[in-house]
């Protein structure tokens, strides 16, 4: 019996609700409807008032959660789509992110952000948000790529006293399956070596981990051994694991599904250049989505985001530098 990525998120919330009385869920249509992606299905029956339907105001949702956290609660807020969290931007970065610094009172909220592209979702239902939130101090930004990470990192996020932006990838919800929900127990803050190699390192996170592995499989047929590092959380960024990998391979491709201007991939390249210049055998490269709104049409969408084909192409460029 296999577990999907969304099952893992469902299971983690179920356990959190059962284990900790201060945990409650808040989001649009998460009660009787069970959430837009059914991540909270059946919770209303078991937990009643601890599963609260929210008005269509992301600003109000986060504001209420921050208030509850001040009073000792551990709210999990479900954004219907990560794209709409921009409406709550002020509450997230100005209130939640700075509260502990200002008052000494922690804000243990976890905001679940269904992010990333699926075919036909277009500009408002496909975006990646990890880069903008990682920019602000005071927020932890988690980007699980595997079923067990979705489960374990969500549980750790809720237990953490800092506000956490939990970026769960919609494409992985039902596509990604695993035999077990239990992982290797790697804690939040540590990156994982998903695939070992010696010719180049791909540093990535979230759904792109799987695209990178597929690209590495193709290049393996030609004898290239590509190492893939899954960051798991983009903030904190486990630069030690990244540098150790670049030390082995000498070449870096930073891969992300977000837009190309700045962001996590730029941060990875910048850190590696600054701290590991002597390890580099070639200029580090980046591959991101295109610098345009995300298109609706599945063909255009496929051309917009990195794919195994475009990753292979970029890796070839890197290997020939």
């Amino acid at each position, binding site marked *: 019996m296999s577990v999907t990525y969304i099952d893992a998120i469902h299971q983690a919330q179920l356990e959190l609700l059962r284990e900790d009385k201060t945990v409650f869920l808040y989001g649009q249509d998460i009660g009787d409807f069970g959430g837009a992606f059914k991540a909270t299905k059946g919770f209303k029956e078991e937990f009643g008032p601890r599963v609260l339907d929210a008005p269509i105001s992301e600003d109000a949702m986060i504001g209420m959660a921050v208030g509850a956290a001040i009073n000792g609660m551990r709210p999990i807020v479900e954004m219907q789509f990560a794209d709409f969290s921009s409406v709550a931007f002020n509450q997230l970065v100005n209130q939640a992110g700075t509260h502990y610094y200002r008052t000494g009172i922690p804000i243990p909220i976890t905001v679940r952000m269904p992010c990333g592209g699926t075919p036909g979702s277009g500009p408002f239902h496909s975006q990646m948000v990890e880069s903008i939130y990682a920019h602000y101090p005071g927020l932890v930004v988690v980007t699980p790529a595997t079923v067990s990470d979705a489960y374990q990192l969500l549980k750790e996020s809720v237990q953490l006293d800092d506000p956490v932006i939990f970026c769960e990838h919609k494409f992985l919800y039902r596509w990604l399956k695993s035999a077990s929900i239990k992982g290797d127990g790697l804690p939040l803050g540590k990156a994982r070596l998903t695939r070992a190699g010696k010719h180049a390192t791909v540093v990535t996170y979230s759904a792109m981990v799987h695209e990178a592995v597929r690209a590495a499989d193709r290049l393996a047929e030609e004898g290239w051994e590509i190492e893939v590092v899954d960051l798991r959380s983009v903030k904190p960024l486990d630069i030690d694991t990244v540098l150790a990998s670049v030390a082995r391979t000498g070449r870096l491709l930073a891969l992300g599904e977000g837009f190309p201007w700045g962001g996590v991939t730029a941060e990875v390249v910048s850190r590696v250049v600054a701290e590991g210049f002597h*390890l580099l*055998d070639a200029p580090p490269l980046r591959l991101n989505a295109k610098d345009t709104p995300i298109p609706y049409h599945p063909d255009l969408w496929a051309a917009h985001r990195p794919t195994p084909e475009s990753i292979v192409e970029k890796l070839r460029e890197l290997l020939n530098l």
Partner: protein
Amino acid sequence: MPQVPIIMPQLGESIAEARIVRLLIAVGDTVVVDQEIIEVETNKATMGVTTLCGGTITELRGEEGEDYAVGTLLGILEASEEEIERTGSPVLGEREEETEKKFSKEEENLHFRSNDSSYEEPVLIEPSVRGLPVPAGVKGAHYISPRMRARMDELGLQAADISAIAGSGAGGRVTVEDLEKFLDYIQGWPRSSASPMRLAVADAMRRSWSRPFASVGLPIPMDKLLEYRSRQNPKPGLTLYVLRAFAIALSEEPTTAGFLIGDKVVHPRAFDLGVAVQVEDGVMVPVLRNVDQHRVSELAREYVELVNAGRERRLTPEQTSGGIATVTNFGTFGLKWGTPIPLPNETLILGLAAGIKTPKWSDEVGAFIPVTETELCLTFDHRVVDGGGAGMLLQRVGQLLQEPEKL
């Protein structure tokens, strides 16, 4: 009538393209064979494109002020069958068939060539790739990646140390793997540790060699100097006379010994000259101060002391610093000429070769007479000095050495 191409010719070894400065003909003009019809300019020179045969210009594709790759079809002229036969000129029709055949065979490699038949660019002449310069941005054997640099630092290697390795990396660059393979390869070879002196010379020469050097030589008669010197007691070293003449000549033209730093030529502050002293496994260069202001007789004692101190390798840093040029007497090894390398902090080095007795025709005597001749060899930084300046400097040194009593 057959059509003859007008092509941008190969204008030089490293010329990939040229700019049309002026079209000297127009469509409809009648031309003769070898007539200059287009004036083109490269980064090296202005040249003319000439006709392959006589005829009438029927088409001009090249425009003034535009750049065209070598081999580009700039125009077409029509010529009679007889003219083509007489000059052996290529004709467009034939070439077209030839090149088309070639392309279909190599189609797979020419992935940039579209199979789309809706618009087909007429392929008449295949651009020549002969003599193309290395494209900008190619790393080449001289590119050393930060990683490679770090590994070399770890091993204490310099770029010159890995010149033996043919790189297998992109653009022929040497990779860390190439380096490791090479080190494995020489692992079993006999070896010895280089002495600190050897390493010091190696370091100085390597640093120095980053500059464009040129060498010139001038044979000079030595008889007057040898005769004069033999009458002195004690006899000053022959090299000292050359040092003195060199210092005087330099003081007359101080920029010759100048240093090019950015857009400034830095002139010498004083004419302090070094003298190369061969020691075991290396060279020491003690420096004699203000050689232009003291006569040989005044310098003789200090010169001997410095040379002896050099041989015994007990020179102080002060005694070896501040030189602006060096004299090296490799004639003591019987060498007839050489191209010595200046020290990294100097622009010039003057070599003194072996004196050799040769017969020279003398108009005065009306017969061949024996003359002891030696070669003065000057190596100079060509950024600072040209062959002419170096030649004049040598001439002056030679001239001064003909009047040893004045030195």
